[in-house]
Every structure is written in structure tokens, then in C-alpha cells.
């Protein structure tokens, strides 16, 4: 492990307390809602926010006693914070210059880095002449110029429009793959996290609530926040074989388990009926329609009842069923798509 950190930042109404380990070359995404403490954690690593307790050890060297300027850490800020009075080249050369590299050599390093991020022709431009995507790449080059052992990225794509974002995301992924130090990035966008990171660390209210590979987190969410992010209905119940009791509802699941368990199924696995369906579909309950909204090509129906759930159905089905707000209907979730895992 290259980075071992326990970060404790106590504020009057909020305490951040989390342990973070990142291997060389690994990209870890801190994912969480606004105000969860993601940026505070990043600032604490960089030395911009003082730790109340804990330690930061990078490649065997304690960093938490050092001021920000002495930590071998590069940071890309959310709105990049490129120095407005310096050219792109001088922005990138700034770090090496501060580390005592002669001017000409610092500029050569900077030019090479700008070349690497595909901006060799924008070297003489001032930050206000750069597009959002270009500024993002200059900020990345600037952070990499000091050859950091740890790279921090605060919402690296949040300030970009949708189209640029797609392009910059795949470029960023490539640059992060080339970087052999540890990377910690902060985002509230699950897609950014899934694409860029090797491991997700989900933070809520200053504490880690779940961590694992993107696939694992996406398949087995452990909090409502994560379930919403990855688009699953999630409940906590008690398993008994292939059935999980959630409140008063008994859900049949694909897995066999015993004891406290989570149950998750996608909104697309839910079917709706005006009247109680014939035959015996399992996982059937009576629900009330709380909301109807467009969701991609489908329609997302918010259901209240013994469990709250989302159901995704086609616009044609909405018309056939003649759904209205407040209406009582029957809902069922396919048992083959209902997954249980230990809580």
C-alpha cells in the first residue's frame, strides 16, 4: 500500500472520520452526496484542511505534520484554479519552478506535459482563452508536473458540459492509467466514478458506508443513496432460504440466504396490473401510485405500499393501464431478478 490515511476532521455540526488505503497505480473514487465530506477529505489529504486526529502516511513517510507545500501531492481543483495572469505553459511550469527547477528546464517539462494532454498549440494561451475541457487538461498537466506520489482530483468533470465531459472522461481515464502513483478522486456522479475508478468508496455524513469495485457496488448497494445512484430498489430484511421478509412483505429471491439480508431488484423487473393477476406471480403486492415521470425511453412510476419502489414501464403500458396519481394497483417483481445478499 502506498497511502495509508485515517482522516478525522471535527467541525461543530459535522465530523469526518474515514480510513483510506490506496495502492500505487490504483484509482479510488470517493463518491457521496453533497455535504458528505468528500472534498473535506481531499483537502485534508492535500494539507489545506487541518486534521483533528489521524495520520497520513504516503510511501512510509508521515505527511500529516507537513504543510501543503511540502507534501508530494498534486491536486486538480473543481474549477481548476489556473492562475489567470499566467499562460498555460507557465501555469504548468509553476510547480517545477517552486521545486527549484531552472526556468528553461521547467518550461521544457511543462511543454512536454501539455503535449501529452494534447494542448501543445495552446501553450501561450491565458486561462480565460481556454475552453472548459482545455482548462481541465491544463490543470491535470499542472498537477502532474510536480511528479506527485499522490494525485487528488476534486470533481474533475463537474464543470464541463455533457458533450465535452464524455470526451474528457475517456482522456482522463487514459492519463490516470499512465500515472503510476496513487489517485483519489472525488465525485458525486456515479458514471464518472464507475468509468474512472478501480475502487469506489461511498461516503455519507462523514463516514464510509460502502466500498468495493464498481461492479460490486453497482450490483449490491448497501444504502438508499447508493441504490438510487445505481438505479435499484433496495430493502433490508431477514432471509430464510430463498425468501426475505421485508416488513410484512415476503419477497422470493434468486439466492438462498439466512439472517439479516439486503434485497435488490431493478425497476424494470417490476410489472404493474390494474386487477389482481391470474395465476400466482410471486412477489406480489398492492401499491398506490405516488408519482409518474419520464425516465429515458420509459416511464418511471413511484409506488407506495408495504414497500416503496420504482417501476419502469413502457409508455404504451401506461396508456393501457390508464394510470393516475393515487390509484391503487398491483405490482410484482420477478423473483429471478430479485437478489439477496447478506446485510
Amino acid at each position, binding site marked *: 500500500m502506498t497511502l495509508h490515511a485515517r482522516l478525522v476532521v471535527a467541525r461543530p455540526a459535522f465530523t469526518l472520520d474515514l480510513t483510506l488505503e490506496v495502492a500505487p497505480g490504483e484509482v479510488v473514487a470517493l463518491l457521496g452526496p453533497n455535504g458528505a465530506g468528500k472534498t473535506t477529505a481531499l483537502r485534508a489529504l492535500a494539507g489545506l484542511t487541518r486534521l483533528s486526529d489521524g495520520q497520513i502516511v504516503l510511501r512510509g513517510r508521515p505527511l500529516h505534520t507537513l504543510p501543503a507545500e511540502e507534501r508530494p501531492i498534486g491536486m486538480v481543483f473543481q474549477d481548476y*484554479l489556473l492562475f489567470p495572469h499566467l499562460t498555460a505553459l507557465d501555469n504548468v511550469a509553476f510547480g517545477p519552478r517552486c521545486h527549484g527547477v531552472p526556468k528553461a528546464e521547467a518550461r521544457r517539462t511543462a511543454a512536454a506535459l501539455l503535449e501529452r494532454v494534447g494542448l501543445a498549440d495552446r501553450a501561450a494561451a491565458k486561462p480565460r482563452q481556454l475552453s472548459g475541457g482545455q482548462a481541465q487538461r491544463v490543470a491535470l498537466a*499542472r498537477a502532474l508536473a510536480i511528479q506527485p506520489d499522490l494525485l487528488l482530483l476534486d470533481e474533475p468533470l463537474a464543470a464541463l458540459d455533457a458533450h465535452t465531459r464524455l470526451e474528457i472522461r475517456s482522456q482522463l481515464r487514459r492519463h490516470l492509467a499512465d500515472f503510476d502513483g496513487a489517485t483519489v478522486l472525488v465525485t458525486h456522479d456515479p458514471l464518472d466514478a464507475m468509468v474512472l475508478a478501480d475502487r469506489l468508496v461511498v461516503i455519507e455524513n462523514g463516514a464510509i458506508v460502502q466500498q468495493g469495485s464498481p461492479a460490486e457496488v453497482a450490483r449490491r448497494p448497501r444504502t438508499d443513496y447508493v441504490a438510487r445512484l445505481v438505479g435499484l430498489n433496495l430493502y433490508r430484511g431477514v432471509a430464510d432460504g430463498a425468501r426475505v421478509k421485508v416488513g410484512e412483505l415476503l419477497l422470493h429471491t434468486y439466492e438462498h440466504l439466512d439472517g439479516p439480508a439486503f434485497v435488490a431488484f431493478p425497476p424494470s423487473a417490476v410489472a404493474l396490473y390494474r386487477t389482481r393477476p391470474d395465476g400466482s406471480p410471486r412477489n406480489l403486492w398492492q401499491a398506490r401510485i405516488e408519482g409518474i415521470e419520464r425516465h429515458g425511453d420509459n416511464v418511471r412510476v413511484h409506488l407506495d405500499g408495504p414497500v416503496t419502489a420504482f417501476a419502469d414501464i413502457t409508455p404504451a403500458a401506461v396508456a393501457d393501464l390508464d394510470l393516475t396519481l393515487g390509484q391503487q394497483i398491483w405490482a410484482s417483481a420477478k423473483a429471478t431478478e430479485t437478489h439477496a445478499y447478506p446485510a
Partner: protein
Amino acid sequence: MNSSVPEQVDLSSSPRGPGSRPAAGREVSGRLPWMLVVPAVVGLVFLVLPLAGLLIRAPWPTLLQRLAEPQVLEALRLSLVCATIATAVCLLLGVPLAWLLARVSFPGRRLVRALVTVPLVLPPVVGGVALLLVLGRRGLVGQWLEATFGITLPFTTAGVIIAEAFVAMPFLVISVEGALRGADRRFEEAAATLGASRWTVFRRVTLPMVMPGVVAGAVLCWARALGEFGATITFAGNFPGTTRTMPLAVYLALETEPEAAIVLSLVLLAVSVIILTSLRDRWVSAP
């Protein structure tokens, strides 16, 4: 903003009638409130009329000849040199002081900030007296300066510079401190993550970013120093060639030769207006 008054009037009497739409980007605001417009115009007249008086009463036919008189040129040169050196001194001391007030929290900071602005409200003559008491030949520091280095400040050109710097420094400090407080400190944090020490951050990031505020403050400071009278005459006296700056020359000429006083005043006015307008457009009102 300047053009809105005549256009507003034009709009209400426009042949297009009340149904026509107002120009895009301007809301329909109705009549200008006379409660604001009348005092505003009176205030403007009050400020401009004395200057107009100077221009009207100026002895235009003999102007050039009077300007070429050696005492005039001497006073002008002395004024410009002293005000410029005083501004340089203020920059050297005032910018770090502003940085300290804006960036370092220490006990008694509010008191220090109040003390810095004291010369603004102090009558300049009182400032001059205070300087004499401290830096005069028998003053607390002056005594020591004379005994140790053989330096006397009162009634010298250096004394003029000190008096001007004392009176003008608050303008610079207030302006720079405001600029520092308004600057986005996250740029300084970004610089720190790149390995910049606090001195480097100040030199390469903070100072360039607050440069408009520094220049604005320096211009105000210079203008104040150029017009300084009370503290100068009290602390540095009124000796032609060494301490008689333009304002002092104006005052002196007024008793013997009023027309010369007008000429000197015009020169002072012209210099101030030229410097202020040329710098103001570039720096002070920059977005």
C-alpha cells in the same frame, strides 16, 4: 449609465407612443426621482464650480511666461519627486501591512486596522505636530537618529516625503487590503499544493492578482501626497527648493501675487487630472 438620462426623456416623448417597447435590456422605470436628481446636480455643481472659477480667472495671456518662472518649475519638480518617493515608500511598507491585516489573524487586529486609518481623520497639521514630537530634533526617535547617524528629518526634503507618506499611506493600505480580501484565496491554496512557500505564493500569485487594487491604491496615495499641505508645512517647513512643494507655493503666492497662485493651482490641477484619468481608465474601473 451616462446616456440613460437623455434617452429616458426621449423615450417618454417618443413619437412611437406609449405602446412601443422599450429598448432591450432596460426596464421601464418611469420618471427620474427629483429627490435624487436635484441634490445630485447641486453636488456636481458644488464640486465643479470652483475648478471652473480657476479656469475663468486664470491669467491666460501671461500663463506661459509665469509657468516658465524658475520657482514654479522648482516647486513642481519637488512636488512630483516627493509624491513619487512617498508613494514608493507607502508601497514598500503599506502592501505588506495590508497583507498582514488581510491574511494573518492576530490578537488586536481590529485595533491595528483602526490605527492604520487614523491619519485619514486626523487634521494633517496635527499629524505634522505628531511627527515633530517623534522625529523632531528633540523628539523621541529624532534625538536618537541625530545622535547615532547624524540624521535630521524636520525641515528637509526627506521630511516632506515622511509627512506625505504618513498622510497618504492609509489610502494605499485600505485599497490593497480590500483587494486582498476580495481575492479568491483558493488560488493561493492551489499554489501551495504545487509546492509554493508563502512568500512565493504572495510574489507569484497573490500580488499579480491584486495588482489592480495596488495600482488604484498607489494612484490615490500619490494624489493625496501631491496635494499634501498641513503636515508638510508643520513638519518640513516652507523652504524654497527643499520643502516648498506646489501646495505650499500656492498658499504663499496667494498673499503676495494672487495670479501666480492661480497659475500654480492650474498646474497642480492639470497634473492630477491627467494622471488620474489615464490610470483610472486602465486600472481603477477595470472589471
